[in-house]
């Protein structure tokens, strides 16, 4: 009757990627169970994705449909390359990666690293974005088919699938590596620098692209495209066109480049996976730093807010200020604001100027930076900064219970959170205004630029105070700052878009004023903008605070992760 506890190895059935995919589908399905609104949001998100995918499909198939093979290589290389770059960078900056299957959950199972990586990779492929991108880039197959017949279409299809694998592997590897860097407190500053460099290098690339398009020198541009075609960015996407245009020998080489890149990315991911799995068990002990001087209250208040009164407001601000720095998830958001806040305005305002930064000439040329364009880019930065607070209670998770138990009034709570966040963001916004104004050679614009920034930021705080109280959602308690629950992805996207649209509408007067008032706005912009922003933020906290008072337990339930 008695059987040995340890069964012989031959009885262990191998675990394949299929199991991971099934597990992911099951988890996704269970998340939807009994939550009609989640299903609805998921469907809406899928439809939007499908809509864009179909549009992109026809865009990419256009050279084939138009029968003009001059642009075929161009479209394939640039569109494909941008897709890969987007998959690498967007998860870092905006969306996060879907961590429905948290690697840490598999730490105790007897799975080889290879099984785990292939399994998680296969599971990562099952998502709406991958399906949408696959559909969109199938346009390339049509183009290749028109010019090169069935063989080219087939090669192109293989290339597109490989390219998609490359995208997903790249996204996982980059977020995994960045997450494990952020986890260790020593290299967090290094991580910030890395992201900054990465994003900064995108800027010149963009400039080069815009300049090249303006030249309308198609031969030169095709030359650039063929070079991109030989990098991992463009290799998988251009194989079909190569076959169609009689360079069949290039196809196997390019596919090989792609495969080697995928394997390398997976290997990189697998290394950071290990640290993610161990990291969940123990985030690593920190050194105990004894020899504390002063009372506990003095310890709570960071030096920057040392002048605040030692009361509830002061305590809330201090705790939030410490959290923005100590919580990896929040810190990642701050870094994003800093990086995107600098490089998007540069991109937008240099759009028409190409490489030469010549303020005299540049000012007269159409499409160059103008007060309206600058205000618009400032509006975007303000939006982005404020929308970080859209799920501010989600950052706290169940720890928010402490504030509920203490009965913190809603208005006080929101005002304190806004104050603490602004301690970081307002200096950043000031830097953005000054740097951008100097870079585009219009130092006199600093005033109204800063005004537009603060006005948008303030209006955004008001909007996001409401969003954070009414539309909070729980974040998974993992150490990956880029992780989010599946299902929450669509919710997050919708809420962010809604909040940004509302903020944009509220801040539109600043752009209008810049367009209509002319020189008066140069000196009127700052005081009016600041007054508008501060007023909006205070009013938002005042009104949303009332809502929060009535919803504290409900909010706590929303942000508490389900276990």
């Amino acid at each position, binding site marked *: *009757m*008695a*059987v*040995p*506890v340890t069964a012989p190895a031959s009885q262990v059935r191998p675990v394949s990627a299929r199991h991971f995919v099934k597990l992911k589908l099951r988890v996704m399905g269970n998340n939807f169970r*009994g939550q009609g609104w989640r299903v609805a949001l998921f469907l809406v998100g899928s439809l939007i994705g499908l809509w864009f995918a179909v549009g992109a499909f026809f865009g990419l198939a256009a050279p084939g449909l138009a029968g003009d093979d001059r642009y075929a290589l161009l479209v394939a290389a640039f569109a494909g390359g941008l897709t890969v770059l987007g998959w690498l960078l967007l998860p870092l900056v905006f969306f996060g990666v879907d961590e429905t299957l948290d690697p840490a959950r598999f730490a105790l199972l007897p799975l080889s690293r290879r099984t785990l990586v292939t399994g998680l990779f296969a599971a990562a492929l099952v998502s709406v974005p991958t399906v949408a991108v696959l559909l969109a880039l199938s346009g390339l197959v049509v183009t290749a088919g028109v010019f090169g017949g069935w063989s080219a279409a087939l090669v192109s299809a293989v290339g597109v699938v490989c390219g998609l694998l490359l995208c997903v592997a790249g996204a996982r590897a980059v977020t995994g590596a960045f997450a494990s860097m952020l986890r260790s407190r020593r290299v967090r500053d290094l991580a910030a620098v890395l992201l900054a460099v990465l994003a900064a290098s995108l800027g010149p690339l963009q400039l080069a692209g815009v300049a090249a398009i303006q030249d309308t020198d198609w031969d030169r541009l095709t030359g650039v495209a063929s070079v991109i075609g030989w990098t991992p960015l463009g290799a998988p996407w251009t194989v079909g066109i190569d076959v169609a245009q009689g360079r069949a020998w290039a196809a196997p080489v390019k596919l090989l480049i792609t495969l080697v890149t995928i394997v390398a990315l997976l290997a990189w991911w697998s290394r950071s996976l290990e640290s993610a799995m161990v990291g969940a068990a123990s*985030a690593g*002990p*920190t050194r*105990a*730093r*004894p*020899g*504390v001087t002063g*009372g*506990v*209250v*003095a*310890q*709570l208040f960071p030096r920057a807010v040392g002048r605040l009164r*030692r*009361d*509830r407001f*002061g*305590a*809330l601000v*201090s*705790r939030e200020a*410490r*959290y923005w720095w*100590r*919580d990896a998830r929040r810190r990642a958001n701050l870094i994003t604001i800093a990086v995107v806040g600098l490089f998007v305005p540069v991109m937008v305002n240099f759009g028409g100027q190409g490489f030469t930064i010549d303020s005299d000439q540049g000012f007269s040329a159409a499409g160059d930076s103008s007060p309206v364009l600058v205000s618009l880019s400032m509006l975007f930065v303000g939006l982005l900064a404020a929308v970080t607070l859209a799920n501010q209670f989600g950052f*706290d*998770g*169940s*720890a928010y*219970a*402490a*504030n*509920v*138990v*203490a*009965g*913190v009034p809603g208005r006080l709570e929101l005002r304190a959170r806004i104050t603490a966040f602004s301690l970081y963001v307002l200096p950043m916004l000031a830097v953005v205004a000054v740097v951008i104004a100097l870079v585009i050679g219009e130092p006199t614009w600093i005033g109204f630029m800063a005004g537009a920034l603060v006005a948008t930021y303030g209006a955004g705080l008001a909007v996001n105070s409401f969003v954070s109280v009414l539309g909070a959602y729980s974040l998974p*308690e993992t150490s990956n700052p880029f992780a989010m629950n599946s299902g929450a992805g669509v919710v997050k996207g919708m809420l962010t878009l809604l909040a940004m649209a509302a903020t944009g509408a509220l801040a539109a007067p600043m752009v209008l004023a810049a367009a209509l008032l002319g020189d008066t706005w140069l000196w009127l912009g700052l005081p009016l903008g600041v007054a508008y922003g501060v007023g909006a933020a205070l009013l938002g906290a005042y009104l949303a605070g009332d809502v929060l008072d009535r919803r504290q*337990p*409900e909010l*706590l*339930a929303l942000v*508490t992760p389900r*276990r």
Partner: protein
Amino acid sequence: MTGEHPALALRGLAKSFDGKVAVAGVDLDVPAGSFYGLLGPNGAGKTTTLSMAVGLLRPDAGGAWVLGHDVWADPVTAKQLLGVMPDGVRLFDRLSGAELLAYHGLLRGMDPAVVDQRAAELLDVLALADAGRTLVVDYSAGMKKKIGLACALLHGPRVLVLDEPFEAVDPVSAALIRDILKRYVAGGGTVVFSSHVMEVVQRLCSHVAILAGGTIKRVGTLEQVRGDRSLEDVFVEVVGGRTATGEELAWLSR
């Protein structure tokens, strides 16, 4: 004025999640000055009941009163009288122990000087002063319970509601927590705590309620509930546990 009111009164508290009943109408009177144990197996609804009693979870029906103050209608007064240590809830664990205490103290509207003095004493007594500036997230499970208790005690509440205070706590820390709670009750405070460890309840409590399947099955003083049997026997009988016969799971023994 508070003399005639029970320290904690629950009336018809009920809650269901997604159609599944978690708590089905709980009535409970916790006399002032008592040491009250809320017993129940896993999933009995202890945490749900206590969460509703302290204002963390809105009940579907019923109400809760702390020394006569309605938790849901007049939360400010009721919450001032309450000290709470929830279970399965994170602390603001990216603060150090000292910072966390200061945060809780000021959040309760206490004078900073009093916070400083009491926090130093609590850290000292609970043997947490050595941890220095270590973040609470890096504390051990027992240390987290102790700092949670310190946060609940800091503002000198009249009623202390603790969810599973002895869970995952080593014997040394448990003894320390027991001593502190005993002193607190001796000084006129009221403690309500949930547990499924009979031995602790039997040793500490003056009153006991047994919760199973979302309703109160037995309630009264320890002697009334226990009778002449052991508390564990009563508990198993009330909850309706089964004992293994030895036939199943045969493969466990070689």
